[in-house]
């Protein structure tokens, strides 16, 4: 389950600092769901549906919009806490540290149970292949399948492309599986229920923080899980990396698992017809194509909202292109042959190990209260209003563009006089009349 529809309007992970906001229109224009308005107060406000894509954070030149970590999730290191770092963490510290060093560094920080995701990623990589093979011939399954890994893509689909929800396979992501398994194992060892085990997710983005937490607890009991951005642990981990005195082997994957978090990484090991698309606008464009019935010959599409995939997440520290370069080196170093026991993975797959029962349809039908004829009537009025506007798309009115302004006017959220061109034109005519 994701956030219920009524909560959609509350942006949980984006904060606008009113003192630093100058009321420019950059974020408003960047927002893919047209949720931001810059009205009278000259300060940007989020009024519509926010999908936590982080585009406004990236666009703001004043540093006024920040992605915030979930509140109350200040972490403390604890030997009883399971920690699960994403594979992109391996790209953040340059070439002096290999994945195993980074996992040891986390242990040095005081986390008792450090669970690598890259090995599970390799298993998932094969599981997706199995899923495709099993389902390619079924008549009712829709292709291309769309990767469930990026939570913002899933939200974007449920909000703007609900017909494509059926393209998302019911497969769990590596981080979900790692958390699930860690809980299972540790609870057996400690003789407690899995719900009592807490997992600390280190994440490259705010949306993932929310998602990672919700995914593991499908039951009624409140999740023990917490999430923290890569940037929040970065300095401490960097310091601890220099003091590693342990030689445990915690990392087992090949380059396939290591590269999982970069754009193209999820599909890199797959022997199928796959595509990787990254960046908000590209993703939207491809979803539009899929909705028109295109790309059916493609088996699987990896969509990531951030350019360059999770390497471009708002909580990452290293420059995404440098991080990518470093990750590519690691991929070469560790090789591109999956280090998994294939028969064992097939067995796990048959036992449902890779699947999730998560309901991905939570946003479906955030229905308008109007009847269809009324909605059509509204659209006609929007069109009439649009004819009156200059089409300069300047945003001075406080709405992102002329079509959205026309909608705001029709919905009573703005008046025509808010448009500077309309205002001027009206003044000119009235001056002329008075002469």
């Amino acid at each position, binding site marked *: 389950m994701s956030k219920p529809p009524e909560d959609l309007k509350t942006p949980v992970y984006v904060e606008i600092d009113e003192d630093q906001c100058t009321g420019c229109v950059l974020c408003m224009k960047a927002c893919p769901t047209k949720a931001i308005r810059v009205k009278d107060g000259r300060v940007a406000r989020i009024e519509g549906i926010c999908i936590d894509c982080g585009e406004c954070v990236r666009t703001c030149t004043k540093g006024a919009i920040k992605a915030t970590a979930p509140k109350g999730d200040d972490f403390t290191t604890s030997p009883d806490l399971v920690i699960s770092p994403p594979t992109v963490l391996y790209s953040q510290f340059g070439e002096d540290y290999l994945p195993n060093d980074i996992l040891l560094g986390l242990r040095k920080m005081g986390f008792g149970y450090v669970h690598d995701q890259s090995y599970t990623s390799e298993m998932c990589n094969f599981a997706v292949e199995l899923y495709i093979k099993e389902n390619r011939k079924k008549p009712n399954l829709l292709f291309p399948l769309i990767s469930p890994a990026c939570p913002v893509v899933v939200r974007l689909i449920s909000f703007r*492309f609900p017909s494509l929800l059926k393209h998302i396979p019911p497969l769990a992501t590596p981080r979900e599986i790692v958390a699930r398994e860690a809980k299972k194992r540790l609870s057996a060892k400690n003789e407690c229920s899995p719900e009592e085990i807490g997992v600390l997710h280190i994440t490259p983005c705010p949306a993932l923080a929310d998602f990672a937490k919700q995914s593991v607890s499908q039951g009624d009991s409140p999740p023990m899980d917490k999430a923290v951005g890569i940037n929040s642990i970065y300095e401490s981990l960097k310091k601890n990396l220099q003091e590693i005195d342990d030689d445990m082997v915690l990392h087992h994957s090949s380059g396939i698992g290591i590269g999982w978090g970069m754009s193209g990484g999820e599909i890199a090991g797959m022997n199928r017809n796959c595509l990787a698309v990254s960046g908000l606008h590209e993703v939207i464009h491809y979803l539009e194509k899929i*909705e028109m*019935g295109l790309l059916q010959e493609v088996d699987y599409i990896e969509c990531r909202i951030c350019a360059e995939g999770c390497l471009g997440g708002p909580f990452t520290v290293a420059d995404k292109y440098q991080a990518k370069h470093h990750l590519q080196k690691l991929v070469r170093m560790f090789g591109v042959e999956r280090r998994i026991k294939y028969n064992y993975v097939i067995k796990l797959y048959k036992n449902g190990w890779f699947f999730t029962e998560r309901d991905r349809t939570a946003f479906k039908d955030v229905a308008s209260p109007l009847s*269809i004829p009324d909605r059509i009537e509204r659209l*006609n009025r929007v069109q009439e209003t649009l004819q009156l506007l200059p089409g300069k798309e300047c945003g001075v009115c406080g709405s992102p563009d002329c079509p959205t302004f026309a909608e705001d006017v029709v919905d009573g959220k703005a008046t025509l006089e808010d448009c500077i061109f309309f205002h001027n034109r009206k003044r000119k005519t009235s001056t002329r009349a008075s002469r």
Partner: protein
Amino acid sequence: MALLQRSFEIEARDFVRAGEASIEVQRILKTIGFDSERIRRASICAYESEMNVVMHGGDGEILLTLDPEKIILDVKDHGPGIEDVELALQEGYSTASLEDREMGFGAGMGLPNIKKNADSLEIHSDKVTGVHLKIVINVKEG
């Protein structure tokens, strides 16, 4: 009684802009908020018929009409018409040129796909006036 009518021009052989009319149709239906399954079916019909016009039809247009019960797509072109409508409705039958196929089009799935996704499809073809497809998708509220 038409509640809304919009027309979109399609230019022959313009593969760069091909598909844009359908995306517009899709966006309008989305703004109104039809259910996603109908939007998907209408978009597929719009896209396939738009590509037919781009490939075979000379210039043409998509006319989107909404009435309380139906989404109607009238796709008209000034091309040479369809020689054998029965054949054209068979999957895999195509008269597309090699050039079109090299671009990945002309797999012979266009009309069959429209037929599959529309609630009703009328095909009027004439060597002089061209092809007129009338595609209807029923709208049931609720």
